């Protein structure tokens, strides 16, 4: 399993995502699927960077493991307890003027993952994202 740990700040987004992409490539995933993995990872990380540590700074850890059929991403933080997967999604039906500017990230994570699990353990938020070789439509 490959790991990376960095301060949960927007300036570290590229480094975190480069790490995820490198590991997904190493696991032999196709480039289209790697873009989808990158997207899900970005949505989770940006959420952590913006909301997990409202007063103090903190870290984010990413663990990657890739097998023949699945790539597993574990994203951990010690911030405010938050189950992203239980948060409501956006209203996709409204027109341009009524469309609200939020909630899409969660929707993308749900769409891109084969499976997503959340646990709060040892005062950590742990989100496990499982990606099959192809997105299930």
């Amino acid at each position: 399993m490959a790991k990376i740990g960095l301060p949960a700040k927007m300036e570290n987004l590229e480094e975190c995502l480069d790490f995820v992409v490198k590991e997904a490539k190493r696991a032999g995933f196709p480039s289209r699927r790697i873009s989808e993995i990158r997207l899900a990872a970005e949505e989770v990380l940006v959420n952590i960077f913006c909301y997990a540590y409202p007063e103090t700074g903190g870290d984010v850890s990413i663990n990657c493991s890739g097998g023949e059929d699945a790539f597993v991403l574990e994203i951990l933080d010690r911030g405010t307890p938050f189950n992203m997967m239980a948060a409501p999604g956006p209203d996709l039906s409204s027109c341009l003027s009524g469309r609200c500017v939020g909630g899409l990230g969660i929707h993308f994570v749900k769409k891109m993952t084969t499976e997503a699990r959340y646990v709060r353990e040892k005062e950590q938020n742990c989100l496990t994202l499982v990606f099959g070789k192809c997105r299930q439509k």
Partner: protein
Amino acid sequence: MKIHQIGQKKDYHVVAVEGRMDAVSAPEFEKSLNALILEGALKIIVDFEGLDYISSAGLRSVLITAKKIQSKNGSILVVSLHGTVKEIFEISGFSTIIPIHASVDAALETA
């Protein structure tokens, strides 16, 4: 991400975006388009031919820009979506709220 001001075609200002539009780069897109609107551009074509990746932060910037133009009775057209970017526009429902065309020429023909 790179933003290229291609110039004017018919009534439209054409802007080409290249690379990745993520949480880090999206504010730059918004700023750049906002500057164009402030200069008086009310009809804009955004060419995403060179765009390989977009996240919700990127879509948010597109939406904010589109709303701004709409509030001034202008119009924004998005062209040349492909791969994951096209998929993201479809999944998000953006394909139904922002006019999308196959190319700059196709957009100009129907505009």
